[in-house]
């Protein structure tokens, strides 16, 4: 009961079931067991890791290198598996 009371009431939320928060406020990063760590000495900036990531959790830095966003990375390991130069290692989070 107490949980419901903390949430906004029907007079406060948008009508028609329109969501009012971006999913970026929901961190899926705590799902992971292993996290990708990029070895920038090996990385060639091919960006396949960014392309393949189902969660959009590999951002591209200003210098063009990829960077995991651990707030959202679920640790699936696709990036490490697909990295053509094996520059990504999955390590225990």
């Amino acid at each position, binding site marked *: 009961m107490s949980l419901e009371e903390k949430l906004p009431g029907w007079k406060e939320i948008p*009508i028609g*079931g329109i969501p009012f928060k971006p999913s970026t406020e929901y961190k899926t990063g705590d799902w992971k067991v292993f996290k990708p760590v990029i070895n920038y000495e090996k990385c060639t900036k091919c960006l396949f890791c960014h392309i393949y990531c189902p969660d959009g959790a590999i951002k591209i830095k200003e210098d063009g290198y990829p960077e995991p966003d651990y707030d959202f990375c679920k640790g699936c390991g696709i990036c490490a598996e697909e990295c053509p130069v094996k520059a990504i290692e999955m390590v225990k989070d």
Partner: protein
Amino acid sequence: MEIKQILMGLNGDEAVAYAIKQVDPDVVAAYPITPQTIIVERFSEYVADGEVHTEFISVESEHSALSACVGAAAAGARAFTATAANGLALMWEILYIAASCRLPIVMAIVNRALSGPINIHCDHSDAMGARDSGWIQIFCENSQEAYDSTIQAWRIAEHPDVQLPVMVCLDGFVLSHTLENVMTLPDEVVKKFIGERKFVTIKNHFGKEVPFILDPENPITIGPLDLYDFYFEHKMQQIHAMENAPRVIEEVGKEYGKISGRTYGLVHPYKLEDAEIAIIGLGSTMGTAKIVVDRLREKGVKAGLLRIRSFRPFPAQQIIEHLKDKKVIGVLDRAASFGAYGGPLFNEVRNAFYDQDIKPLISNYIYGLGGRDMPPQRLMIIFEDLQKIMETKRIEKTVKYIGVRE
């Protein structure tokens, strides 16, 4: 100001189609089904002749008809569809979705009995099946009202305090295929009355106040997964919108009266003031019943009637006000609710009176299923029964079936 109206000979379907031509919605998506077919046929002609700008989507099913209307209305269009009986049943899932997404779609229901066995004639089993779907339901007495209500429906649906879809119900064949004199307003008067579609604004998931439509510049998400933590609140909003609807239906009905001379409300009484016995019901039968009331009055019987125009929202207070001092009332249901204690209208009417200290005796008459005719003679049987109840002060059988063979 007196507006010059044009008298046209139209059947109910044509009256609806003509009103929709004048409204000129962006999208009509519909599928033919007897006795609604004339609406889509006539409207197709308006489209073919370039008399409307409407995109007419001739869909492959009623399910898709309403689904397309949901897409169109969510994209900011005025969207219309029309159906009957099995077509409405096929839409059932989307009825609830359209209402919960708060999309002001207008739909004509040409009332027809639901299968099976398959039947094409009038009863209200189709609309009654949709009574809990969150749609406003307006029942028309004649083709004139079908025309008038099809115009008013947009103003009701799109009202910022309502934002709910509206069904305009007219009796299959009795109205849909029967030629009547219909007074029509000039196109520009209709256009001015309904105006452009306006949009309420809501806060989207980026915290921005934006119009409630699918607009690439201001994205919103319509139709999410809504679990136990918010679903109830969304239903509460729908309940609240429905609570606002009676006021809006009356306001719109009055405003329409100013331009047309024909004022509409939630209920329409006939010779009720001093009546001792009265019937209450929906649709075209209540037109026939006026003649019966007149005949009874000639004989000195204090008879009257109350026609419910708005079944959803249900005008309980208005019904109580009009009927509380009557001795006996008969509720006419043109639909059976199998296993229930009487028909759907009866249940609501009697429930409305429960808390009243002084209330009439209330009897239920189920009639006209599958198009079984309801001529004055059969209505007379009902009034005679009401007179008997008044004299004996007791109802022997609460639910009676009128016009069925044993």
